[in-house]
């Protein structure tokens, strides 16, 4: 917009012009100050957490509270593995979120592909089924799911955690939109070359969908990594708990240590944060696509 307004300056006389420029500079400063303030609001809790996780317990619970403390220690990061079975939580979260992500990428793109590029009986019905599925929250059917998993002896197992999440209506929707956007004649040419349907899908369509697949991958990974209620209900022993469920269960009553909990919180968000730094584009794309309209 800067460039656009520059063209119109010819019409304005010189005094107005300098006024205008001064206003603009002031506006830009105000804008930057407000934004920096907002950045501070967003970042401060994280910095405070990081800093406090290196404090002695005594300094954490002291009044008045201080942001900085004279002494820092690693003891919380050592103690946390002992007080909370954090290693197990990390392992479970990696297995649950990782396997769910991989499997759902395969299943979602298969279904999305069929809905996007194949003509078959009942296509509209299936499409609406997926669309409606997107609107059904897990919370309303969690109790029967708990009972169902119990009857199938799948409570507190990796299988029980992964399978119900192995496909998502949103993932299907996202992959469908992706495949709809690919050129129409691609598969027709491949079919003429004698490739079968599975090969067309894996050799031609999937390689062209890498950006969407990446976006969906980080999207499902984040969702499952951070989910609380689902693993809370489907796991019973602490040896199966994921990071959010494990941490949430540790902030209950009679906790007389903040330090290790803070260290645990830092550790729990570190992996996703590192992935975010390197794959920021895909995270943002995933969110942007969730707002995509037909």
């Amino acid at each position: 917009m800067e460039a656009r307004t520059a063209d119109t300056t010819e019409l304005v006389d010189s005094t107005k012009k300098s006024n205008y420029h001064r206003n603009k500079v002031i506006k830009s400063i105000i804008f930057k100050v407000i934004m920096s303030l907002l950045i501070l609001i967003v970042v401060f809790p994280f910095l405070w957490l990081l800093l406090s996780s290196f404090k002695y317990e005594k300094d954490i619970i002291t009044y008045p509270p201080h942001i900085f403390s004279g002494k820092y220690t690693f003891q919380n990061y050592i103690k946390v593995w002992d007080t909370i079975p954090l290693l197990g939580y990390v392992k479970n979260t990696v297995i649950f979120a990782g396997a769910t992500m991989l499997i759902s990428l395969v299943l979602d793109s298969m279904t999305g592909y069929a809905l996007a590029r194949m003509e078959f009986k009942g296509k509209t019905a299936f499409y609406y089924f997926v669309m409606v599925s997107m609107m059904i929250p897990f919370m309303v059917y969690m109790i029967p799911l708990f009972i169902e998993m119990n009857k199938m002896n799948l409570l507190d197992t990796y299988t029980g955690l992964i399978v119900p999440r192995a496909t998502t209506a949103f993932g299907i929707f996202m992959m469908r939109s992706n495949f709809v956007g690919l050129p129409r004649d691609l598969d027709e040419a491949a079919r003429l070359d004698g490739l079968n349907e599975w090969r067309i899908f894996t050799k031609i369509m999937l390689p062209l969908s890498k950006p969407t697949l990446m976006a969906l991958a980080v999207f499902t990974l984040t969702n499952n990594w951070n989910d609380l209620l689902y693993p809370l209900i489907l796991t019973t022993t602490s040896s199966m708990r994921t990071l959010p469920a494990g941490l949430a269960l540790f902030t209950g009553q009679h906790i007389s240590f903040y330090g290790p909990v803070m260290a645990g919180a830092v550790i729990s968000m570190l992996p996703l944060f590192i992935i975010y730094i390197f794959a920021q584009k895909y995270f943002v794309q995933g969110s942007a696509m969730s707002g995509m309209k037909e």
Partner: protein
Amino acid sequence: MEEIDTSVSKKRSFFRFWNQPKHAAYLFMAPSIIILLFFMVIPLIGTLGLSFFNINIFFTGTKFVGLDNFVQFFHDQRAINSMWHTVYFTLLETPTQVIVGTVAAAALSRTTLFNRFSRSVFYVPVICSLTTSGIIFSMLLDPNIGWIPYVLHQFGMSTPQFFRDASLAMPSIAAMTVWKNFGVTMTIMLTAIQAISPSLYESAEMDGANKQQQFFHVTIPQIIPSLGFCVMTNLIGSMQVFDQIYVTTAGGPEFKTESAVQYIYSRGFSAPYQLGYASAVATILFVIIAILSVSSNLYMSHKEKQMR
């Protein structure tokens, strides 16, 4: 010989049959559809079914009670309140998040270094779990060890109790949720704003519109569909609020922050472990969410038709 021949040809015709797109499609979709059926549709029907029973978590003394659980709901002040609290949270959270997210998107729509940095930072809370956010904020806002209440106290306020104050707790939770999630809205709205053709602004400028006027007369009408989408998903998401409440207040003080899902959870999975009654409450919540989804969907498509 003949037998082998027919089996080969049978195999071949079998393959040919399933290789036709109109048949192969079912194979492509089968795993997803089966999973959705087994782990969503069947449990969903189960919710309705269970709500007609008295059933506890040990499955002892299961009894068909007809509509009793629904009758009980309307006499259960705590249950009805939990619905109101959910609505209250939604009314606090949704507009705030949409406005903050949209304004941030509009302000940062030009791609400069500063703006790109700001966007990256604003998205960081999105990848942080609500559990972790809850842990951070319950310590940061704690009147005894938290830094923020202390600072406010230094400015002459009586130390605000945030999560512990019956009237402040829900707004605090909503504010925390906005902090955590506005990056999503910002990203969606940013995509929408950047998709607006520059020629629209140029012609507006020609007509002498200043930036404010441009925002209201060009930007807003162009982003209405995305805005509508954000409002809708936020509404439905807010109706399911649980994680941040479970971690920060667990429904307190005085059940003032107990949301519908929190209530379902504590009825079903802590004493007295009434899975049947919890299912009845879940059924009612589902009906509310369904009405909301369908009506907002209809409204949106109606609006879009009008705009065309």
